[in-house]
């Protein structure tokens, strides 16, 4: 797959006009991580409502088109879902969400940073253990 397939119109659109970008006034989960490879940073906030549902999800961050589009799309997907949904979320889901681009191992990290931040936050909230296996192998 060529980069023309990776940088489709929709990805660039989310990169330039990220949905759910910003901070929440009230939130129950606040999670942050960065990718030491490139310095990409993401902070995500979640407001948890009744039925353990994620009522509001917002993020701020900086980084490449892949990481920023990915996290923005993810907030849209997550909004309204129960916390349990995050536990089920797999990297394949993220790839599918991005249109299954053929990313090299280092760019996989970019694509999954948002998921890592969300999982870390939700798992921490639930008192559970975040499983590194969900990530790619490389730092």
């Amino acid at each position: 797959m060529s980069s023309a397939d990776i940088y489709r119109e929709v990805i660039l659109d989310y990169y330039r006009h990220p949905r759910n970008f910003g901070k929440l006034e009230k939130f129950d989960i606040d999670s942050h991580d960065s990718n030491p490879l490139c310095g990409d940073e993401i902070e995500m906030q979640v407001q948890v409502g009744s039925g353990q549902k994620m009522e509001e999800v917002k993020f701020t961050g900086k980084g490449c088109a892949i990481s920023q589009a990915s996290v923005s799309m993810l907030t849209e997907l997550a909004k309204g879902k129960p916390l349990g949904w995050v536990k089920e979320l797999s990297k394949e889901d993220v790839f599918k969400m991005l249109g299954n681009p053929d990313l090299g191992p280092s760019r996989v990290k970019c694509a999954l940073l948002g998921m890592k931040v969300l999982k870390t936050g939700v798992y921490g909230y639930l008192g559970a253990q975040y499983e590194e296996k969900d990530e790619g192998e490389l730092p």
Partner: protein
Amino acid sequence: MLKAEAFEVAKVREDFPILKRKVHGKRLVYLDNAATTQKPQLVVDALVDFYTRYNSNVHRSVHTLGEEATAAYEAARSKTAKFVGADPKGLVFVRGTTEATNLVRFAWGEKNVKKGDVLVATLMEHHSNIVPWQLLARSKGATLKYVGLNPDGTLDMGQLEDLLREAPRLVAVAHCSNVLGTINEVSAICAMAKKVGATTVVDGAQSVPHMPVDIGAVGADFYAFSGHKMLAPTGVGALAARKELLEEMDPFQSGGEMIKEVFEDHSTWNDVPYKFEAGTVNIADAIGLGTAVDYLSSIGMERVRKHEVALLDYALRALSEVKGVKIYGPPDPARRGGVVSFNYADVHPHDLATILDEEGVAIRSGHHCAQLLMRWLDVPATARASFHVYNSYDDVDALTAGLHKAGKLFRL
């Protein structure tokens, strides 16, 4: 534009087998030399020769292989020392620049830095010339302060002078920035630092591979560089210092090789530089570094530098003609090393690197282990193209063509 060559690049390219490789079906255009350089056949041959003809441990050996390996290892030390104008007895083989600065931190710093001392680094330093001093400052109760930069990416010498008035214990500065390319006036800085009694650590990771360096003339107390960035194998580099300074220092790592005598309650140390080479050293790669030095000398570092300045000049012009490209660092090629950091509109360097890779063009993207500098530049990352002897004007053209493709993909 005149494209004069300081030497016949096409011929030099033949010495580097990897350059025949295709990436995504395209010719490999390797512009990531500040991260690590490619290796000439000669260096690869030196490794093969060692492992298939005289591989042995060194220094403690009486048999023929051991004596040959020792002679080759010590010859590599002498050659490397001569190449940079250092005393072989003051040249310690280490893994690279990072191990060199850490050696200084542990073996010199722990003994000589006291509570309340001031240490000085610059905002353009690589992490390996910052984090060791942060940790040293923390462990000793000292303070690490930074020299800032002028808008053109040169050091703010006025600020340096101010800091020197605080009589710092240490001044740590890069000879050449791995991001901005800025060549710092290290001999002036070392002289100024010496006047106020500061010990100087010069990071030569981006100078020794690219230009003539005479450590004696620089006047640094400690001078560090990495082999893998100067056509040598990974895993070897050097710290150069005056023999007498090394002698006064505590050892760093300890164990075999660096001792003279071991008793139950104490030990005595071997002579320098061996005192700092604990355990089995990286014999083959040190010999490979000696061979890389031979190769570079055969071209001549003046010519290497001239070639890179020409490429740099060409690249700076070509890139500045691409709309939306912002280049960092001093504009004058004569005042900077062969490295160009830039950003292209809102295309993140990572995305740019991915798009270029598809064209066979390898550049680096990210913070380049210089996060303080990224914050000063107020960017999360930059794209970086960097040159060595085998790069050509065609390589720069491939980079520019790749940028145009990225521009199209990103609808710029």
